[in-house]
């Protein structure tokens, strides 16, 4: 990127506390106009709390958070008017039909009835729900509900779209449709803020990501840069008992690969895994896998491979 766009969201020392619990611990970042910016992290890392502060439904405890040059505050209606939120939880209005859900939402944004109807027709086409306009919410599949959440988030033609784990619980078809739509929105000039636990999603959608853990930002960069810097190009996995580590590692001293032992597996992070793979096969270790490094490796390396509960 030769000439980065101006920042739409600027956080510095951003902190959120719930009583004694520090959910977001003095983080700083910049989201540029027109990019897709991803927050990655395990459950409880502070991703959702961060984006909730960005879209003005959770007050900032300390530090500063500017959106479009304005402080993000609960009663900042100007910011809410320019923001579209695709929530993690499906909070559609179950008492209302698909069309009524959107009509009522348009009202909340002061959009007149005629204009609302035109936009709704367009949005239902966009998310491929034209046929469901009069349906009750209970008649929709999870994928349809998630698509309706996207249509609802776009009713005010937002400049900033906040998507909090937008594909949780979806099958691959539904997920890919949502990814396509989100990319389409970005190409139309919207700025996208995404939280996700799916590394593939981050790789598919994000220009830049930050990896969050325990309220802090561990790393920031483009997905491919992070993989390259943190892991290398390839990963070799060897499934062997830990007792064999010394013997195997002794044989591999000449290979420039970092290694890590997790449970029943020995991981090697290399620029090029082919030669190592050959050597391991020579050592009669058939239970070996050579694959390209992914964001998932970065994620697991940075946040640890143990469970976060």
């Amino acid at each position: 990127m030769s000439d980065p766009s101006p920042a739409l969201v600027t956080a510095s020392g951003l902190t959120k506390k719930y009583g004694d619990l520090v959910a977001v611990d003095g983080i700083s970042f910049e989201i540029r106009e027109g990019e897709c910016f991803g927050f990655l992290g395990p459950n409880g890392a502070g991703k959702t709390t961060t984006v909730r502060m960005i879209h003005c439904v959770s007050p900032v405890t300390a530090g500063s958070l500017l959106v479009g040059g304005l402080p993000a505050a609960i009663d900042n209606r100007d910011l809410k008017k320019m923001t579209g939120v695709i929530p993690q939880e499906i909070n559609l209005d179950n008492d209302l039909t698909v069309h009524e859900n959107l009509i009522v939402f348009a009202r909340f944004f002061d959009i007149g009835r005629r204009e609302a109807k035109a936009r709704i027709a367009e949005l239902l086409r966009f998310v491929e729900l034209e046929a469901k306009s009069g349906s009750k919410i209970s008649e929709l599949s999870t994928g349809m509900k998630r698509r309706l959440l996207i249509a609802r988030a776009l009713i005010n033609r937002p400049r900033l779209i906040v998507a909090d784990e937008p594909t949780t619980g979806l099958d691959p078809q539904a997920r890919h449709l949502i990814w396509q739509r989100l990319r389409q929105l970005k190409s139309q000039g919207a700025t996208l803020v995404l939280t996700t636990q799916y590394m593939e999603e981050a790789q598919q959608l994000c220009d830049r990501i930050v990896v969050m853990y325990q309220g802090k930002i561990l790393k920031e960069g483009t997905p491919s840069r992070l993989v390259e810097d943190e892991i290398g190009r390839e990963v070799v996995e060897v499934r062997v008992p830990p007792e064999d580590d010394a013997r195997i590692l002794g044989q591999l001293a000449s290979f420039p690969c970092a290694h890590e032992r997790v449970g029943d597996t020995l991981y090697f992070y290399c620029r090029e895994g082919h030669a190592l793979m050959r050597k391991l096969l020579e050592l009669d270790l058939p239970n070996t896998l050579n694959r390209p490094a992914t964001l998932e490796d970065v994620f697991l390396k940075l946040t640890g491979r143990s469970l976060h509960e």
Partner: protein
Amino acid sequence: MSLSYRVAYVFLRNLYSYKRFVVPTFLVSLIEPLFYLITFGIGMGAYMGAFGGKPYLHFLVPGVLATAVMMSASFECLYGTYIKIVHEKVYDSLIATPVSADEAVAGDILWGSFRGLVSGSLMMAVALAMGVAPASAWRFALLLVFMVFVGVLFGSLAMIVTSIAPSFDFFSYYTELVITPMMFFSGVFFPLDNFPGWMKTLAGFMPLTHVVRISRSVYTGEAAPGLGWSLAGLLVLAAVVFTISTRMMRKRLIK
């Protein structure tokens, strides 16, 4: 407090959702007052002779009317709002829009008040059919306005309870310990004259007592002493309770 015309949008949302339940809620709203008026008014009333020169039914109607408004507004702002916060997450999606938490709460209180007005009006229709009419046309209109106010008062009160309710069961404390006693000790079914002094004092602290006094006086056209004080007290109480309810709800909604 952050209030604007957007309160109307929240009311409108409720109206949309209400469309589907109009018929059943009308039926329920009609059946309950009918039971009260038939059992107490006609059944019991037959043994009671004249009440201040008129059949008992004339004494009973304004009180039951006020109770119906209280009940509807309370239940809407207890169960209705709780469902919208906890189960349907309507509030979560609302406060992410330019609608403020205060407006969402005020819109729901107004909605509770509207439900109260519907119940009260149906009740009045039954009373009219039984020949118990307000003393004049303007008194009839005044009663409608008063019902809206009573709805706001009890809706706000219920909203405070909802703001701290950890679950549905919590509402039983409020309905059994506050609403039900009020219904029996606020002069709805009989005058408070025969209560011992301390009970009269206690009844004086119950908002429904004053609501019933005003309702009865407006309905029948009979003057009652200190009615202005009753009204002033209720107005102040409503303002205080409304303010507290929006504050406490904001605490629940915004974290």
